[in-house]
């Protein structure tokens, strides 16, 4: 989104704070000062991920603190789905497993958390897959199910959207 704010100390923090307060994640901040334009307002572009349904409250908050929202870019829905994989994940090339999802172009492995007990015992991994739509997350899960069958690990899926 592109924002317009007063060019005075502390203003940038005041727009970033509401984003983190609603649980958002800032991906980039572009803050350009055009020397040709002498103005007391400043344009800032922020790229961020925010929880579903939190855009409206965020915009209301900006309005409250006197920040003008000039433009909101493409709003893309982010869907995350976590599954648990149990088996010999390292020995069956976990990089390859991750690549299978990442190379689809429509989904990616967003987080991985692994517990490895003793050697030769199956490890347990929580894998979070991220995509821009539920349909694509489900497509990625279909692929992961095939991989699980081939590499013989147990896949535990969520009962509901968790």
């Amino acid at each position, binding site marked *: 989104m592109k924002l317009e704010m007063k060019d005075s100390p502390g203003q940038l923090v005041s727009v970033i704070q509401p984003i983190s307060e609603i649980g958002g994640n800032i991906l980039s901040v572009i803050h350009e000062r055009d020397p040709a334009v002498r103005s007391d307002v400043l344009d800032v572009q922020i790229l961020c991920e925010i929880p579903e349904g939190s855009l409206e409250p965020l915009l209301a908050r900006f309005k409250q603190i006197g920040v003008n929202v000039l433009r909101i870019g493409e709003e893309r829905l982010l869907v995350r789905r976590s599954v648990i994989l149990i*088996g010999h994940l390292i020995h069956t090339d976990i990089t390859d497993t991750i690549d299978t999802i990442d190379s689809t172009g429509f989904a990616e492995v967003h987080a991985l958390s692994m*517990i490895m007990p003793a050697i030769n015992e199956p490890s347990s991994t*929580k894998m979070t897959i991220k995509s821009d739509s539920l349909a694509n997350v489900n497509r990625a899960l279909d692929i992961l199910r095939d991989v699980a069958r081939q590499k013989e690990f*147990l896949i535990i899926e969520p*009962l509901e959207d968790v």
Partner: protein
Amino acid sequence: MRVAMLGLGSVGKGIAGAILERDIGFTLTAVADSKSGRIEPSGIDIASMLEQKERTGMCGTPGVGAVDILASDAYDILIEVSPTNAETGEPALSSIREALCRGKSVVTSNKGPVALDFQSLHRLAEEHGAYLRYEATVCGAIPIMHTIESGLAGNPITKLYGVFNGTCNYILTRMAEEGLTYQQALLEARERGYAEADPTYDIKGIDAAIKLVILANAVWGMEKTLDDVEITGIDGVTTASIALAEEQDLTIRLIGEIIPAEGVLRVSPRIIPKSHPLVVGETLNAVAIDTVMAGEITLIGKGAGSLETASAVISDLLFIRDCHGRRS
């Protein structure tokens, strides 16, 4: 009404006790265990029969068995509560068929015959003007069949899902609460009498799958068998995997699901929020019924146990008594 009972294990004893103690209007006229039987058309003295069973291990005279009882005509309803055989359904299946062919109604807690031969048993019952009731086969004391048939009558059911096996639920609960390994939790379940010496049926998800088959056939008139169920048991679930789930206030439970519109008939361990109504403790069962008008209804209760199973059998007996004569 006169009832005959095949099987006098813990469930059978519970039913006999209930007939004796509660004034519900039934007379036990015949009973058989695995070694003996007795037929007394004027009514068995239940207290002395149970006392004899306790003392000698036999309820009656050796040589008297199911065949004699079925042929005796000394009963209106047959209670079939002998041990289940999931592969052949026998000898219960033959006994149930025989009784239905004679126009006698049947109440059973025996999953094998109901899962294996559902549609043909129902046809037999219909042809001979008899009732076949099996509330006790699914989720023990939970009145799931009565709820769907009577309570939710007229409500199309879109989905059924839940915790159908108390042994698995106990094991997963203990792994989550105490960090026990799967093997430790299984041993504990055995010590407490929640798991059989051979726990395969429970932990591989087969027991839960049999219940799904019964529900699919009973609720939607499907013709499913055990082979149609996609089954994953809990024996591969690690303590670490539950710990990973718990980091986000989630846990793992063995869930059975029937979603006819999506062709889903599946038993599998699933990640589920700890606050979900299906997350029940110990050996409890829980089943959620998704309906068109009533929304979602969740029933929670004891899925096994002699008195709990007897409760389901008694409610079926009373159902048949109350409906008697309506079907002609």
